[in-house]
């Protein structure tokens, strides 16, 4: 666990995913301009940056929902810039969404099953009759999901629950399960721990590490929780105003003054507290200083 598999093959193997000079404009707004970076196989790569920097837009471009105005995206060496989104899913680009996009009319189990869609072969006629291939495929799918995903993410108690009434944290976990069902080579997670407290964040961090270890998936994530980003990732890409302003190992990025100015803020809890309490017009309490 100390070194990720990626480090060893850095030079030899070509990057799994290459983003090259990607530019994306909405009318006048330039969400991305000339973004380029590589994602090594087996790595955990984080994309960070201020709000509105274009991180989600970047994910959307990689998964094909937006078509870039310029630039290219290569996956396993193959140019997929013009490949429509469903086909990219079949190639192994799986993702979760920033604003949870579960299907509210389905149970947890069906949501997860849906992730496998692109890999199944059942046709309309099979489906209407439900014999042969349809029946076989459904049974296999069910076993696979139960044994590998539901078990792994510890969501067996809710598998038949409708997703709508689940607490936020569990919904995020179901999204992750659905992405896993897509048989990902690259698992893209958009803010996987937003809205979670420390304890839940820790759970999610553990899942992410385990996904890489057990599934051999490469992880690409957007996240604002710096603790987690810095602890987990092998490579960090920083976006600001649609441009890459820094990239490298967590330590390198953290030390970059530009990044600190645009994104990280003071980052020092003690200083922060003093600042906030000064703003609130109170003297810093002695106990608080002790805690920090």
């Amino acid at each position: 666990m100390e070194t990720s598999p990626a480090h060893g093959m850095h030079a030899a193997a070509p990057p799994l995913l290459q983003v090259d000079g990607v530019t994306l404009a909405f009318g006048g707004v330039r969400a991305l301009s000339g973004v380029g970076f590589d994602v090594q196989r087996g790595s955990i790569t984080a994309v960070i940056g201020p709000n509105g920097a274009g991180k989600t837009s970047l994910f959307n471009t990689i998964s094909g929902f937006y078509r870039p105005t310029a630039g290219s995206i290569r996956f396993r060496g193959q140019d997929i810039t013009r490949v429509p989104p469903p086909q990219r899913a079949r190639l192994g680009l799986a993702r979760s969404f920033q604003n949870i996009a579960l299907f509210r009319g389905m149970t947890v189990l069906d949501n997860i099953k849906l992730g496998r869609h692109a890999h199944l072969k059942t046709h309309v006629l099979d489906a209407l009759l439900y014999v042969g291939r349809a029946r076989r495929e459904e049974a296999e799918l069910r076993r696979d999901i139960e044994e590998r995903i539901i078990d792994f993410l510890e969501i067996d108690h809710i598998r038949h629950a409708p997703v709508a009434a689940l607490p936020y944290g569990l919904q995020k976990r179901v999204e992750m399960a659905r992405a896993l069902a897509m048989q990902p080579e690259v698992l893209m997670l958009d803010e996987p721990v937003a809205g979670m407290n420390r304890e839940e964040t820790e759970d999610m961090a553990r899942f992410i590490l385990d996904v890489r270890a057990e599934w051999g998936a490469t992880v690409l994530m957007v996240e604002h929780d710096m603790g987690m980003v810095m602890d987990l990732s092998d490579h960090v890409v920083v976006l600001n105003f649609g441009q890459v302003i820094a990239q490298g190992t967590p330590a390198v990025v953290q030390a970059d003054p530009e990044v600190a100015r645009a994104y990280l803020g003071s980052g020092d809890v003690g200083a922060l507290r003093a600042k906030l309490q000064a703003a609130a017009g109170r003297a810093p309490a002695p106990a608080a200083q002790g805690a920090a």
Partner: protein
Amino acid sequence: MRIGTFKETYVADAALFDSRTQHVWLGIAAVLLVAFPFVASDYWLYLACLIAINVASSTGLNILTGYTGLVSLGQAAFMGLGAYTVAILQARWGTPLLLNLLAGGFVAMVGGMVVGIPSLRVKGLYLAIVTIAASFIAHFLFANFSITGGTTGLSMQPGQLFGAVLDTSFRLYWLIVPVTVLMLLGAANLFRTRIGRAFIAIRDRDISAEVLGIPLLQYKLLSFGLSSFYAGVAGGLWAYFFRVVTPESFPLSLSIFFLAAIIVGGMGSILGGVLGAVFMTLVPEVLKLIVDLLPGGTNLTVFLSPVRLVIFGALIIGFLVFEPLGLAEMWRRTRRFFHLWPFRN
């Protein structure tokens, strides 16, 4: 009492009807369906056939609107396509009945898919109005073509199946009800597989569905196609049932009727489509029966007739206001009341 039905295998868990009780109910329903024609009067047989036709068509609409979330007000027109196809085949070439029905389904399916083409860009109510437009265009074609007999429409001979001439409700029952049951089973199966799940995903969030591997246009068209295939077959049955097809046979109000049926029954539920179609077909008849039972005879009929319109509308409103999930939900609640449903919430 069942406290949790434990399933031995995942296959059993995914079965369509998962418990002994349900099998028993199903058996009883089948026996009732088989016995019904031997005890019912011509009127009730007529109604049963009509209900079955409406169930088939509503189920089709439920696939499109209830499950895929594409509101359509063209279901009647697609039935018309099926009915005209059957009538033309039957009257001009006398081809075999089952073939005609399939042909009716396919012609409607093609029509439905053509209408579905805008669905990638046009959404929600805008799309619903496109389907209205489509049904007016269909009506125009029916009324102005010679092959469809213009405004006069087409009359046809009774159909024949396995040597039997289907000229009474009793005989038609044995065609219409089994075909409908088959179509129902097909629809129920559909939603156990990836196709059905894809439909629901499109309904709930179409844009994220695409990123998850579902080609939107293909599946929207498929949904339109399936739905109109159901409508087309239902229309074909309708043609054999009434044996006269005119442009006025499939008005917009019929499309609204089907929409009302799936909403009253419960959108996105096969059972809902069935219950809704049964309910909506029977309501006017039951209201009539009630009026008949009141003293006062036909004079009262004249006076009370508009009341039926009011009640009809009030029922739709009442359902939506008081039971938005429809009859299927009422049924489920009743069932929960009788079984101790295992630890929901």
